[in-house]
Each structure stands twice: as structure tokens, then as C-alpha cells.
């Protein structure tokens, strides 16, 4: 009788387990991200997940200018559209505090996922909240930073090399400092190349979302801009508007004035790509995420394109991009979403992710001695990720970003006031926001 009961129990358990497996197999989970080149690579990569688990993947990709609006609206309304979200790094504070993202610590521990397998800067930037703690709300999914592309073929022309050397006493080469970068940009501005007038640089100037902030901070960080007093959080006076920060902002404006294409007053990712691909500019500041696509471009890719890390000035610093992947707490398919995270954290999957054009943050990829040789921009990416700095990741990040967008655009593009006034005003705006949040 006991044997009979045991057999029945076994049969029931088998039925149940195979039933749940069948249930998982029939399921579809939705991953939400921005619509850009790496998203296409992820679609390709995720086919392996479906093949392995039987869980189908659906993707909801929103163009960058609308990505934050659309997805934060989704999260705030506790929508169930997304099971997985590759959300921007700045969202982590709000999404953790408002419980939009599932806390992953227990899951990592249970599944043996070692967060230490990922680059510490990326873990800090994409996964943790509050900063400096071990509370993980995301797995680093896509490392990214602001970098530069240049027209290698133009730089290689003997006549241009000679002229530049005569003028500046050095080779026409990827700049190491912002001062050098401006010299190069000035050199190309208005020059005729192959019968076409070209310009110095395409740099972010966009007003509507985050463009000018991401671009200007790429100059501000190397000049010495800091968000707050390291000894006293949220104390910004003398850091945000330090003499170095003012100098950095003035420099960015001078670069915009001297060396951008005419009318380049509202340009960001796509406009930068268009300007570079159409052969309008010698230099372009954009996210590393676009570099694999640019390298493959039939007109300006291959031998014609070169890459370099954000130049230093008084110090080194690159603007952080990139995102972590999180499980949405309102999802009804959390188990399947978590299984995707588990699969994605695997070193072999991460290697394939990099091979397909995604920027892995896994040490197995980045720590490979041959990594720097895997792509012409790999070494620069590695270097950039070593000195990245991110915008505020506070729950009020959007308000803080709006204030910076307005202050910078007013000063750089609309010629309103001075750099000091812009940054003093920014300190006032930010202080007000933090005061409302009870944080200073």
C-alpha cells in the first residue's frame, strides 16, 4: 500500500513538474528597451534563450527621445506590458524606492549568480541603490559611455598631416586632451574635402531629453566638475559651479561655436550619426553602443573610421551610458523573467552578446587578454569604463535633468548669461529639488 501511495505521489509530482515546464514553455515574456542597434543584437541573442527554455520573447523597443517618457509612465502606472526592463541607469533610484524593480539579492544568492563577475563600476552604476550598498535591482546588461569617432582616412592624408604639423607642431592624430580636440575640430571646420565643405565636430546639443547634458558633462568631468562635496552629500556649492566646472562649460560652448555644422542646435544621437555618416564632420561624440554599427557602415566604416576615448584635460572622465536589466515587480511572469536573467548572466552568453554587438560588462569578456583586439573600439571602451561618471540617479533625477538641460541650453545655444550664472542657477535649482525631497 505504501508503495502504491509513493508511486502515486511520484506520478503526481512528475505530472505537476512536467505540467509547469509545459506551462513555462508556452509562455511569452516581454522585454522593454530603447530602439537602437544593440536592441537588434539582443533580439538575435535571445533566440538562444527561447531555444533553451521554450519561453518565447517579445520585445517592446521605444526610440530614445520617447523612451523615458513611455517606460516611466508604464512603471508609474504599474503596467504589465514589460516583464523585463533594460532601463536607463538614472532610473535605478526611483525604480528601487518605488518598488518597480524586483530586488535581486536573494535570487542571485539562490541561483549562484556572482555579481562580482561583472565590472565593479558597472555594478555600481547599473545595479545598486542606494549607491554604495549591496542592494541589487538589476544585472549589468549593456555597458556604455560617451566616446568619439573620427575620419581616419582624412587624418591620414599627407597634405592635411603636413599642414596640421606646421600649424600645431604635432601629428594630426586622435586628440588626447580637450584642447587638442578643439584644435583638430577647428582645423577641419569649413575645410573642403573631396569637393565638399566639411565641419569640425558633431557634439550633443539636444534640448528635449538629455542630449546637451550628456555632451557637456563629457567636457565638464575632465575639467573637474563634481556633483557634490564627497564629504557632504548634496552640498553642491563650489563643486557644481567650481572654477574648473565654469571653465569646462565655457570650453564646451566655444567648441559648439567654432566647430559644429551650421544649425546644429538640437542634435543628439541620430543627428550625430547622420552628420558623420554623410561625411559632414571629422569628429563625432556619441555612445560606444553605436560604434559597431558605424564600423560596419559601407561609406564611413572600416578603414575610414577611427575611435578614441573621451579626451582628458585636468583629469580623466567619461559620461556614463548603459543600462542594467531588471525584473518588473508588476509582471505576472516573474519566474520566467528571472530565468532570463539567470541565462543572461552566464559567461558564454555574455561572450556571444559582445560578439553580436552588445557591450557586455562581464569580467569573462572584458578581462580576456585578447579583448582589446576583438574590435577597434574595444580598448577605448575598456578605458572609458574605467573612468565613467554618471548623472544623478536619485528618484528626482528627471527634475534634476530638466534643470540642467535648460541651464546648459540657455547658456551654450541661446547665448543667455555666462557659464558662472548658468552653473550658479543650476546649484539653486538642484538645491530646491533636494530640499523638496528632504535631502539637504
Amino acid at each position, binding site marked *: 500500500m505504501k508503495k502504491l501511495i509513493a508511486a502515486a505521489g511520484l506520478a503526481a509530482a512528475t505530472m505537476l513538474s512536467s505540467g509547469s515546464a509545459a506551462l513555462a514553455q508556452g509562455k511569452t515574456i516581454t522585454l522593454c528597451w530603447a530602439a537602437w542597434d544593440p536592441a537588434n543584437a539582443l533580439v538575435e541573442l535571445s533566440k538562444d534563450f527561447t531555444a533553451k527554455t521554450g519561453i518565447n520573447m517579445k520585445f517592446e523597443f521605444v526610440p530614445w527621445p520617447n523612451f*523615458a517618457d513611455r517606460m516611466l509612465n508604464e512603471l508609474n502606472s504599474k503596467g504589465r506590458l514589460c516583464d523585463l526592463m533594460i532601463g536607463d541607469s538614472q532610473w535605478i533610484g526611483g525604480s528601487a*524606492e518605488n518598488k518597480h524593480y524586483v530586488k535581486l539579492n536573494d535570487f542571485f544568492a539562490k541561483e549562484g549568480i556572482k555579481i562580482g563577475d561583472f565590472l565593479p563600476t558597472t555594478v555600481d552604476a547599473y545595479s545598486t541603490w542606494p549607491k554604495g550598498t549591496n542592494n541589487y535591482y538589476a544585472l549589468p546588461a549593456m555597458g556604455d559611455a560617451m566616446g568619439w569617432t573620427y575620419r581616419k582616412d582624412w587624418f591620414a592624408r599627407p597634405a592635411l598631416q603636413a599642414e596640421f604639423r606646421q600649424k600645431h607642431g604635432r601629428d594630426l592624430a586622435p586628440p588626447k586632451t580637450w584642447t587638442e580636440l578643439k584644435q583638430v575640430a577647428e582645423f577641419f571646420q569649413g575645410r573642403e574635402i573631396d569637393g565638399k565643405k566639411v565641419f569640425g565636430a558633431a557634439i550633443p546639443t539636444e*534640448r528635449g531629453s538629455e542630449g546637451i547634458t550628456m555632451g557637456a558633462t563629457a567636457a565638464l568631468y575632465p575639467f573637474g566638475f563634481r556633483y557634490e562635496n564627497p564629504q557632504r552629500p548634496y552640498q553642491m556649492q563650489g563643486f557644481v559651479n567650481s572654477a574648473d566646472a565654469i571653465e569646462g562649460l565655457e570650453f564646451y560652448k566655444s567648441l559648439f561655436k567654432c566647430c559644429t555644422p551650421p*544649425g*546644429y*542646435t538640437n542634435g543628439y544621437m541620430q543627428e550625430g550619426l547622420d552628420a558623420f555618416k554623410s561625411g559632414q564632420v571629422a569628429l563625432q561624440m556619441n555612445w560606444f553602443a553605436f560604434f559597431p554599427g558605424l564600423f560596419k557602415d559601407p561609406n564611413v566604416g572600416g578603414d575610414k573610421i577611427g575611435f578614441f576615448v573621451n579626451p582628458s584635460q585636468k583629469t580623466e572622465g567619461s559620461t556614463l551610458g548603459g543600462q542594467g536589466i531588471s525584473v518588473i515587480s508588476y509582471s505576472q511572469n516573474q519566474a520566467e523573467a528571472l530565468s532570463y536573467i539567470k541565462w543572461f548572466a552566464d559567461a558564454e552568453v555574455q561572450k556571444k552578446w559582445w560578439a553580436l554587438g552588445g557591450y557586455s560588462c562581464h569580467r569573462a569578456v572584458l578581462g580576456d587578454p585578447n579583448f582589446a583586439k576583438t574590435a577597434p573600439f574595444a580598448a577605448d571602451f575598456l578605458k572609458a569604463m574605467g573612468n565613467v561618471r554618471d548623472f544623478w540617479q536619485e528618484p528626482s533625477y528627471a*527634475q534634476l535633468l530638466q534643470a540642467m538641460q535648460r541651464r546648459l*541650453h540657455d547658456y551654450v*545655444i541661446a547665448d*543667455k548669461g555666462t557659464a558662472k550664472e548658468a552653473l550658479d542657477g543650476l546649484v539653486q535649482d538642484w538645491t530646491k529639488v533636494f530640499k523638496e525631497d528632504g535631502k539637504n
Partner: protein
Amino acid sequence: MNARSDSEGPARNVANMTPDRVARTVRGLSDKAIAWLFIGPTMLLLLAINLFPLIWTIQLSFTNYRANRPNAPILNIGLDHYRAILTDPDIWLRMQATAHFVFWTIALQTIIGFALAYLVDRKFRGHGFWTTLILVPMMLSPAVVGNFWTFLYQPQIGLFNYIVGFFANVPPGSFKMLGDVTLSPWAIIIVDTWMWTPYVMLICLAGLRSIPDYIYEAAEVDRASNWRQFISITLPMCMPFIMLAVLFRGIENFKMFDMVNLLTSGGPGSTTELASITLKRAAFEAWRTGYSSAFAIILFVAVFGLANIYVKTLNKVKAR
């Protein structure tokens, strides 16, 4: 007789089929009650989708509520948001930018729209074709218009810059319609005027066609000149229509968002940041729900108040 019995037949059948209890209930209702029964569902729907959100918005405007902080306590802060908005110099700059946009778009659209209507009202060869062609811009989506005017204004390849440069004898790349603080407010006015003048033209055309011919015939008998006829007959009789067009365009442009957002995103700096763009940023980017509710109420009261004054004036003009 036959017809009457035919129509009464089905009605009587339906009446006979009505259950006694229902019939007794309905029989007891007054005409007014039956009327309410019919319009009740519609009224309820309108209350649900119009009045309820309005009341809720008013209520939220007195709180510190943020839609992205569901766990934060909601505190009543009285008139703080209203005080903050009305004393914020930046908000007044946005209101000035909005007033500039509304005033000039209405002025240009009314003048050009009426002139076009006056021309189109005359029968000429290809009249239908030209009328249709003029109407095309207003049939386009503001998103499409915003995008293609961005190209037209492009300093290097834009057709607009090329044409202006050609006639003004200046290089096309020497001016930036969307990137210049002085030019960008006019850039958005030009696009809105291009898009919506046909709408004003249509309304004015309806006004012109409503003037009976005999009035002009009587004026001609009195040897009134064309100019006199225009001043004394055409313009006054068209005035209610023109004013109606001004009202519609005024309300629409006061809340203009999509086209300007696509063209300039409010830039350069905040030069073309109209009130609705500020409102959208506060509500759906910064998630300051209470604050943006107060701002929405202020804008609503402003538009509603101005529109009411205007409608009263319009009624007086019509009465004349």
C-alpha cells in the same frame, strides 16, 4: 387609414409584449423623467470623462502628490503650487512666449485666411484645384509637418533657407531659423500659419458665401464702390465668422504642443518653450503631478475666461 394601422400594428405588438410590471412603472413616469432616462447614460459618461477628471485635477492641485511616488504620503499644501507658479518669473516668460505665438499666428492666419477666402470666392479657371491645394496643409499630421519643416529650415540643405537666401542675397547657411533666439519664435509662427491658414480660409469662405447676392445688387444700384461694398457689407457680415475662426485658433494655439515640440523642443534655450511644453515636462517628465495640476487649472481658467469674454463680444457682434 391603412398607413396608420400599419404603423400602429408593430407599436401595439411591442406594447403588448412589454411585461406588466415594466409597463406599470413606465406608465407612472413623467415626460421629464423619461427624458432623463434617455439622456442619463450620456450625462453619466460625460461626467465620468470630463467633470470627474476636472474635479480630481483641482483636488490634486492642492496636494504634493507625485504620480511616480506611490508610497509617499500625500499632504495638503493649500495654495502653495498656485503661489509658486504665479510668482515664478520663468513661468511668466513661458506665458509671454505663448502670448507672442498666439497673437501673431492669429493675426497672420486671419489676414491671409480671409484674403485667400476672398480670392477663392471668385470663380476662376481651376478654382476647385487651387482650393483643394490650399487645403492640403491642414490635412497633414502635425508630426509630419514638424518633421518636414525641420528639413526645410535646415541651414545647409533646407529649401526655406535657400529661397530666403536667394531673394535676400545672403548665404543660406548664414541664418538658423530653429537655432537662433530671434528667429526661432518666428519659425514656429510661420509653420503654424502655413498649416492652419486654410482652416481660417474655410470658415471665412462660409461667411462670404452666406452673404445674399441681393445686398450687393442693392449696393450697386446705390452706386457703392467696390471698396465701400467691402467695408460696409462684406467685412461686417463676415465678422462673426472671422471671430469664430479667431476663437477656435486662439484656443488651439494656446495649448499648442506637438508641432513646436517637434520643431524646437522649446529651444534654443527656452525661447520657444510654450506653456503646454512646460506643463508636459512638469507632469510627465518630472512627475510633479500636484504642481502640474495647478498649472493646468491656471491655464484652463485663463483660456476659459478669455474665451467667455470673447464669446460675449461675438454674440454682440452677431446681434448687430
